[in-house]
């Protein structure tokens, strides 16, 4: 497994004071918090950061980590030394950071898998199981039709000896049509098992869309850019456009400027109030490479002598 340089992740020196570490964590957490940040890798960075802080904020864990020595480099192949944990004791506290403990193999090899205090109870009382949360990425097209996804979850289990292990739990989940990014889907009874005779918890899936090369999504509306020729923009045309619901015929009105939005009502994400599909016109310019093409453009300039593309006040230098 790969060695993780927690000091590097947090951008602090190996001899940083505890309050310095806390400050670095707060700063980076604000920058990479997935609910705030627009950085593409925010979620990964935030998780890494949470793990680094989990170790460095705890004097016991930090001392043990420092004991590995300063010569390890991030990404280096790592095995815990045989005398690891000798003289150190970890009091398996509640994890901060990303909620459900989801640590790297490196972390788990050093500190074990997060024990959750108070969960190993005998079934002498009844309590409804915890609700679980997970994220699922689907394609925009799936939101139009609905889809089925195999979802694998790691579920902590406690055996008869009281040891904690994780079991993989796979479900085939039907995701209904009309779902939008950021919405939650509830799967009743698929969370943690209840204690005693109580009901199990529910599983919540937060839906996200994979980035799409052609479509942008805003709430329930979908946008796509459509390049057209200058003559199509000037004189109008009927063109075929492939949309998430299939190919549609689109009438481009004469005199359309670049950036004009044509609305296809009800062709956005389906639902009680379906969204709209917006086609944003872009004017593609043929290049003037050959002599005859250049002559054509010169002739056009001649014909449109009074045309001033910079007629608006403030545009001209």
């Amino acid at each position, binding site marked *: 497994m790969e060695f993780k340089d927690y000091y590097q992740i947090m951008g602090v020196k190996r001899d940083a004071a505890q309050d310095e570490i806390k400050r670095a964590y*707060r700063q980076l*957490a*604000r920058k990479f*918090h997935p*609910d*705030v940040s627009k950085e593409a890798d925010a979620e990964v960075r*935030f998780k890494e950061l*949470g793990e680094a802080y989990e170790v460095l904020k705890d004097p016991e864990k930090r001392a043990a980590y420092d004991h590995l020595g300063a010569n390890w480099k991030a990404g280096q192949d790592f095995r815990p030394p045989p005398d690891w944990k000798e003289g150190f004791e970890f009091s398996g506290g509640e994890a*901060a*950071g*990303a*909620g459900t403990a989801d640590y790297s193999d490196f972390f788990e090899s050093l500190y074990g898998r997060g024990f959750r205090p108070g969960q190993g109870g005998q079934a002498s009382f009844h309590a*409804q199981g*915890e*609700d679980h949360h997970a994220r699922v990425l689907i394609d925009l097209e799936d939101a139009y039709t609905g889809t*089925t996804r*195999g979802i694998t979850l790691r579920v902590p289990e406690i055996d008869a000896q009281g040891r904690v292990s994780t079991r993989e739990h*796979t*479900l*085939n*989940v*039907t*995701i*209904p049509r*009309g*779902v*939008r990014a*950021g*919405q*939650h*889907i*509830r*799967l*009743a009874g*698929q969370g943690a098992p209840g204690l005693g005779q109580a009901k199990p*918890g*529910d599983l*919540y*899936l937060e839906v996200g869309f994979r980035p799409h090369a052609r479509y*942008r999504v*805003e709430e329930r509306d979908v*946008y796509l850019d459509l390049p057209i020729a200058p003559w199509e923009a000037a004189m109008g045309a009927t063109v075929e456009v492939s949309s998430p619901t299939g190919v549609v015929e689109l009438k481009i009105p004469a005199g359309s400027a670049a*950036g004009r939005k044509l609305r296809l009502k009800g062709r956005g994400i389906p*639902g*009680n109030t379906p969204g709209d599909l917006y086609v*944003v016109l872009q004017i593609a310019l043929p290049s003037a490479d050959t002599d005859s093409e250049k002559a054509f453009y010169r002739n056009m300039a001649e014909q449109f002598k009074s045309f001033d593309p910079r007629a608006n006040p403030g545009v001209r230098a």
Partner: protein
Amino acid sequence: MTSEKTMLPQVVGIILDEQAQLTLEELSRACAAHAELIIELVEEGVVAPIGREPDSWRFTGTHMRRVRVALHLQRDLGVNLAGAALALQLLDEVEALRARLRAMGGD
């Protein structure tokens, strides 16, 4: 031998949308937060459930999303509920400005 895929348990999800009607108890379970904390968030104006009294409150899917974000900010950034409420409000404004920017043709 039957393929493994066909033997998987099949479950159908329900979208929590604007029509969803979660009770205070359901919401606090789903967010793993005490009901008191959610009552505080309602008092801060982070979400405005339908209904007069906590017992009759109903929350939508959007409410749940906001409550979860507020709780995450509180837990991960060390801000108090009022601070989380302010961050959410500013995030809303940023989002509205971004949407206007996009509508004007910028990216």
